[in-house]
């Protein structure tokens, strides 16, 4: 019962934040709604027993990536959005397409029998040592490759954002 209540509260927060991102005109309001979505997703991860993933979701996503977004919005002084001819055209065809997409995915997911097994609170806990064991034994090569990826991203960002001398 408590599990249902917690799930619906956080799910409503997440969906509300996502809809707010869609509806708001100013990018900074969209950015803050996205931070709210990420926070409620972190709480949902805690309900699913993924404590390490929840903590790094807050630290990395909500605390670093979104700070970068907010920084850029403030620096570029982005104003409110304007609706152009292209965007109205997309809305006419886009809204039915999006409705069909969500209907399809929900139908497929809700009708498979395996998907109705329940999740018990606390039955499975993703401990840090478990994730670390997997990361450094089975997934060592992807881990090293991501470190090279981050290095490339740093060099790319520095080169792209530099002013022409």
């Amino acid at each position, binding site marked *: 019962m408590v599990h249902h209540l917690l799930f619906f509260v956080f799910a409503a927060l997440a969906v509300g934040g996502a809809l707010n991102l869609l509806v708001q005109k100013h*990018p900074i309001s969209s950015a803050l709604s996205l931070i709210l979505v990420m926070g409620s997703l972190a709480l949902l991860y805690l309900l699913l027993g993924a404590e390490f993933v929840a903590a*790094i979701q807050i630290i990395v996503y909500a605390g670093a990536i979104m700070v970068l977004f907010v920084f850029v919005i403030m620096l570029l002084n982005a104003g409110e959005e304007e609706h152009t001819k292209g965007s109205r055209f997309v809305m006419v065809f886009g809204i039915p397409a*999006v409705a069909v997409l*969500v209907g399809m995915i929900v139908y497929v997911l809700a009708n498979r029998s395996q998907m109705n097994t329940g999740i018990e609170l606390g039955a499975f806990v993703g401990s840090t040592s478990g994730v670390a064991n*997997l*990361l450094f034994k089975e997934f060592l090569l992807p881990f090293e490759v991501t470190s090279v990826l981050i290095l490339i991203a740093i060099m790319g960002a520095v080169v792209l*954002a530099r002013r022409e001398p």
Partner: protein
Amino acid sequence: MVPVSYYLVLSAILFTIGVAAFLFKRNIITIFMSIELMLNAVNLSFVAFANLHHDLSGHVFVFFVMVVAAAEAAVGLAIIIAVFRTRETLNVDRVNLLKL
């Protein structure tokens, strides 16, 4: 006992809202944020499946998705700043010609 399908349906709804925001919004930074929303929705599916199968590989995949999202956000925002410097606008409909 909340069924797994609830979490997966929530992930689908968030993903679809991300797709809708990607299509309907005109500000390039907001479009970028909708990509992050889509990535987050997929992360939720990964964690839900990890709980269903009692396998921690789902959490490791979420870790990798976060790393890639961080790298992509950094480079993408650098590109946006470079585009803003030349075109003086953040509206994607106005950045539709190769030459000014």
